[in-house]
């Protein structure tokens, strides 16, 4: 394979610099049983800035000033999609593995929730309470996602895309064909969020806060992992697997573990998405949604865990308001063209555009190492 094949073409600048330096640092100290890991950014080097608080306040206060429609359709939906896309960003941006099966993992969680929990199909659903059904659904999805990872880490780069896409489409066909477990074309209707401690999560505002909490959880989980030894090693593997292997890291194990983490995030997103839609059908895991998750992640930018959420907001806004701007039927054309434009002109997504704009118009801030 040629040198660039296994590499992630996008988001290479910026990230490689620090990982390479941390790699050199551990090299200088020589080999040891547990190679020292230099943490990239300590929490105190990354202080809470005004815009962080602003975003936090905005997100928490959003249902107060927004209409229920905006809260639910835009807010909750983009956060749920953002969460699924976040799992792809984690895998792709930091692990160097673009997996198109993340929506499939989310869909497995959704299907399992409908099968073990309650749905309109009483004959097929087991009807267990949410507090059993949700953990089981997530567990099965994580096992499936890890299995998908185990299969696809045997290959690298673009091969991963092909295999995960094949798996995703195969799962879609299975859901469509199979009536005894997946209920075929109809899927499962009326899969609703439960009422917990008197709070009915089917209502728009409580559901928004539920999704928001999960999104925060996912975001900070990824942030934390990226600073933890595992995350730093993962980024090292992304940049140079051979060197990491020589340093004593188990490359395959790290990659499969990354798939497991990503599967967990995607599974939570999948459960939320089913509750949001109130149903799951083969279409929810169809090719277009498998690809849409990639579009969301790339649109936002894979350089930072906030990227997928930005991408999801843009995507959902486009999807919702497309009807006012142009023919509703032509949404795919628009999103495809936007995606093409981003890939062609700003591979780092909207975050990359923003960074370029800052470089051009703002003076570099002092004090940043």
């Amino acid at each position, binding site marked *: *394979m*040629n040198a*660039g*094949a296994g*590499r*992630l*073409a*996008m988001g290479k600048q910026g990230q490689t610099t620090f990982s390479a330096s941390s790699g050199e640092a551990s090299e200088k100290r020589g080999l040891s049983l547990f190679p020292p890991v230099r943490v990239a950014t300590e929490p105190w080097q990354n202080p809470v800035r005004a815009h962080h608080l602003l975003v936090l306040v905005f997100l928490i206060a959003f249902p107060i000033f927004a209409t229920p429609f905006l809260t639910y359709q835009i807010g909750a939906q983009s956060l749920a999609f953002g969460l699924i896309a976040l799992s792809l960003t984690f895998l792709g941006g930091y692990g160097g593995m*673009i997996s198109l099966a993340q929506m499939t993992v989310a869909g497995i969680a959704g299907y399992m929730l409908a099968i073990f929990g309650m749905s309109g199909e009483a004959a097929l659903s087991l009807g267990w309470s949410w507090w059993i059904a949700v953990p089981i659904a997530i567990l099965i999805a994580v096992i499936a996602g890890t299995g998908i990872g185990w*299969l*696809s880490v*045997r*290959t690298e*780069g*673009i*091969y991963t*895309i*092909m*295999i995960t*896409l*094949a*798996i995703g*489409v*195969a799962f879609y*066909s*299975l859901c469509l*064909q*199979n*009536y*005894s477990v997946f209920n075929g074309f109809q899927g499962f209707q009326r899969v609703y969020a439960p009422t917990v401690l008197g709070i009915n999560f089917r209502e728009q505002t409580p559901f928004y806060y539920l999704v928001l909490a999960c999104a925060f959880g996912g975001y900070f989980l990824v942030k934390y992992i990226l600073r933890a030894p595992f995350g730093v090693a993962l980024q090292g593997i992304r940049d140079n697997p051979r060197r990491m292997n020589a340093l004593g890291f188990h490359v395959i194990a790290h990659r499969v573990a990354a798939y497991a983490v990503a599967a967990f995030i995607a599974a939570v997103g999948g459960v939320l998405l089913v509750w949001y839609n109130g149903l799951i059908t083969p279409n929810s895991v169809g*090719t*277009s949604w498998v*690809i849409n998750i*990639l579009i969301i992640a*790339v649109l936002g930018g894979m350089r930072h865990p906030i990227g997928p959420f930005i991408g999801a907001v843009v995507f959902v806004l486009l999807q919702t308001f497309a009807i006012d701007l142009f023919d509703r*039927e*032509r949404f*795919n*054309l628009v*999103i*495809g*063209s936007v*995606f*093409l434009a981003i*890939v*062609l002109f700003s*591979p780092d997504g909207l975050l990359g555009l923003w960074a370029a704009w800052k470089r051009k118009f703002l003076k570099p801030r002092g004090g940043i190492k």
Partner: protein
Amino acid sequence: MRFRQWAWTLVLAVPLAAFAAWAIWDNAKLFFITLLNGLTLASLYFIVASGFTLVFGLMRNVNLAHGSLYLLGGYVGFFVAEKSGFFTLALLAGFVAAALIGLLMQVAVFRFMQGEDLRQTMVTIGLSIVIADLLLWGIGAQVHQMSAPDWLAGPLRGIPLITAYSKYRMALLPLGIIIGVLLWLFLNRTRIGMMIRAGVDDRGMLAATGVNVNLVFATTFAIGAGLAGFGGVIGAVELSMVPGEDVRLLLASLIVVIVGGMGSVVGAAVGAIILGVAETYGLAYAPTYSVVFTFVILVLVMAFRPRGILGQAA
């Protein structure tokens, strides 16, 4: 090593042979018709996937718009056949239309991002969405079914065991073989084929010897895309043309090249036969789980030969 190979062959061959024996004893006609269906489907898969694997082998470009080119070729063939009435003209038109679009993609986009495999793949994803939606916009969602030309219409009678079989589908078998042989001759006996093979092995050295690599790339991309369009016209008769078929054929191409080995035309043939036969037997004997067989094959191959049955370690 020798023993292990034998052991694995036995593990795979014994259940398959047992199934075949049972199926022949149970219903020989069904078994052989399914076999023929599988092989003719494999022929279509091979034609489409060989283009995919050709492009991939040379340029490391996973052209995920390959399915869209298939659909495009099929539609073009359909309308040409409707206007002119000549099936061969439709085949030619499907090939040329898809080849032109492929050429355009290579010249206008991929030339500027050589070596950035992942970005190229993303671009093909974007293109596939756009092309699929443009086709849906322009042509609509209704099913377009092309009829076979007169000299291939109707059944072929008098075959032992299965009595009759569609002439058109039967003709696909030699067609697939002819295309495979032509492709092999093109790659192994012509100058440009030699350049393509050299490019597969080492692009840098090929350029260094003074070959116009861009021309080789453009030719390969045009032929690869053209094969998708050619397959589209065949599929317009054998299957049907409807939005969604692009994804189906893309998936088939992906699995064929993953199973057979990426970048190898012979591998594409092997993969196409395995997939085509497995898919039709699955549909005939276990309809609601047929995709599971495909998936099991994929998993087995990935687990034991990650680069495909005929794939070489790159």
